[in-house]
């Protein structure tokens, strides 16, 4: 009996902690959304309000003729993230297929190599990368943000883990007997089987690419800015006195992510759990 009561108190405590943490996650974004609708004057008199106001249009007007352009940033980010995601997913699956399906001399050496380079952070090679892009004339274009996605070692690793149990070599063999070519087998048989893995990896690559700041900031000029670079413009002195507009700008930059997250949260959480098992 006593034990039961104590356990109950413990469980209540757990709920309190969880609710507190949930509020901690939501609160900053809630303030952001509410303050996006309030005027600078209102924010200055009381910084926290739970009730939205009516100044969202006025706040939007502040961006008029300024460099911060969320629509342009959205389109640029869309282009970069979509391109990078398609390349990363397709070529990683292709590479994993090469390792799983075919027997070639350097296969094991190749896979060990992939494992070793898994952790090289792209940031450390920036100077060499920038110089190369500069000499190719690729500075201020989206290509250097998209094309390197072809080589994504961690995704190759993940795809291989998924492919080994999912793709039976007998299917490949029987397709060959039916006279199918190797590319045909990969595109029409292996890719559909890999769909669940492709979907989760696609979500993460997309979000990751969308959130990149370092490379775009180095390579792009203001006319080509992606969303996170646009956000950095809100640090500008001009916005020091335009609180409402800053909150609105921040809100607009995360709006697409909120939409994606709440539509796909189930798959995203499952994907995080799945991805970690490889460790």
């Amino acid at each position, binding site marked *: 009996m006593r034990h039961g009561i104590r356990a109950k108190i413990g469980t209540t405590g757990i709920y309190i902690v*969880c609710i507190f943490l949930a509020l901690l996650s939501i609160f900053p974004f809630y303030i952001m959304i509410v303050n996006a609708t309030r005027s600078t004057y209102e924010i200055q008199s*009381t910084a926290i309000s739970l009730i939205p106001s009516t100044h969202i249009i006025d706040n939007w007007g502040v961006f008029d003729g300024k460099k911060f352009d969320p629509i342009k940033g959205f389109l640029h980010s869309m282009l970069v993230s979509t391109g990078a995601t398609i390349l990363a997913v397709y070529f990683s699956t292709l590479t994993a297929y090469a390792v799983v399906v*075919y027997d070639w001399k350097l296969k094991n050496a190749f896979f060990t190599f992939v494992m070793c380079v898994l952790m090289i*952070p792209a940031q*450390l090679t920036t*100077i*060499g990368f920038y110089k190369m892009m500069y000499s190719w004339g690729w500075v201020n274009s989206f290509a250097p943000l998209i094309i390197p996605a072809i*080589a994504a070692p961690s995704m190759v690793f993940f795809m291989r883990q998924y492919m080994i149990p999912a793709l039976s070599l007998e299917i490949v063999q029987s397709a060959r007997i039916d006279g199918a070519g190797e590319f045909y087998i990969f595109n029409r048989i292996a890719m559909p089987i890999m769909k669940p893995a492709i979907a989760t990896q696609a979500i993460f690559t997309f979000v990751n690419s969308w959130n990149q700041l370092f490379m775009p900031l180095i390579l792009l000029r203001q006319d080509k800015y992606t969303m*996170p670079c646009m956000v950095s413009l809100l640090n500008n002195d001009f916005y020091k006195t335009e609180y409402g507009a800053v909150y609105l700008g921040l809100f607009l930059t995360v709006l697409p992510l909120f939409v994606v997250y709440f539509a796909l949260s189930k798959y995203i959480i499952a994907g995080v759990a799945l991805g970690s098992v490889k460790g």
Partner: protein
Amino acid sequence: MQRKRVSYAKWGYIFAAPFMIAFLVFTLYPLITTLIYGFTNYKGMNPPPLEILDEPFKMYKTVLTDKVFLPALKNTFVIWGVNFIPQILLALVLAVWFTSTRRKIKGQGFFKVVLYMPNIITAATIAILFRALFQYPKGPVNDLLMSWGVIESAFDFSVSGTAARCIVAFIQFWQWYGYTMIVLISGILGISPELFEAAEIDGATGFQQFWYVTLPNLKSIMLFTLVTSMIGGLNMFDIPRLYLNGGPNNATKTAALYIYEQAFGNSYRYNRASAASMIMFIIIAILAALVFYMLRDKDEAKLNKIIRQQEKEYKRKMKEQKLQGGGN
């Protein structure tokens, strides 16, 4: 009679080629050139023809002795540590609660979705959002603390180095503990339930179960989390850059921020930035190798060795058989 078999080996090379080419061009080549630039005179808006310096390690010496790099490196470690220790502890506690069969916490789906949410939001946005939240003299956090009576008058968070560091570490913590929690939950769910049942039969308390069953079995996943978090932490850029741009007084200047400023912050010191990049590369490689070595499962390593030997044996036998078959 043996039919001649078609060899598909060449397709392995063809399918792996795009990855290999892209990797060589976009990662390996830049890595090598970055390494080389660290020994050269490569700097300025219109850099002179590349030459190896008379004293090749001059840039490394400069970086290691200048007033900013080592403190920046220290900041990076401090900020990472202050974020990681509470992060892994909280994540561990939450993971144990959520997987507890005795307690059966409800609403887990909701909590997971909400606690993980900050992780997918652009770090750049979050940095500027927190800057706005910690605004002085009128800002949401100051208002809140004053109305609760924690402080009497508004506090300027942007002039205190300690406050700035803590806030950057807090943001990092707040963005990542949900992720770590989900990773650990999947780790705990991967532990064989029989182990827990056996512990229960033996009369182990909740804490004993955690200490003797859960924790040892989570070792490899915790190692994975540690290494990835550390590598991410050592490259920390977005939040310190946009929160206070490394300030006040370089208190939140990280190594990545230093590299960025040297090369692209109107100083065009590409050689110095390259040397700093290579120093970071070495540190990351050493730490990753060290942690893997320390925490590697010794039994597993032995087992792998045995398996490899058996595979070799098997292959040798197959070959012998084939040779004999060919002879017949």
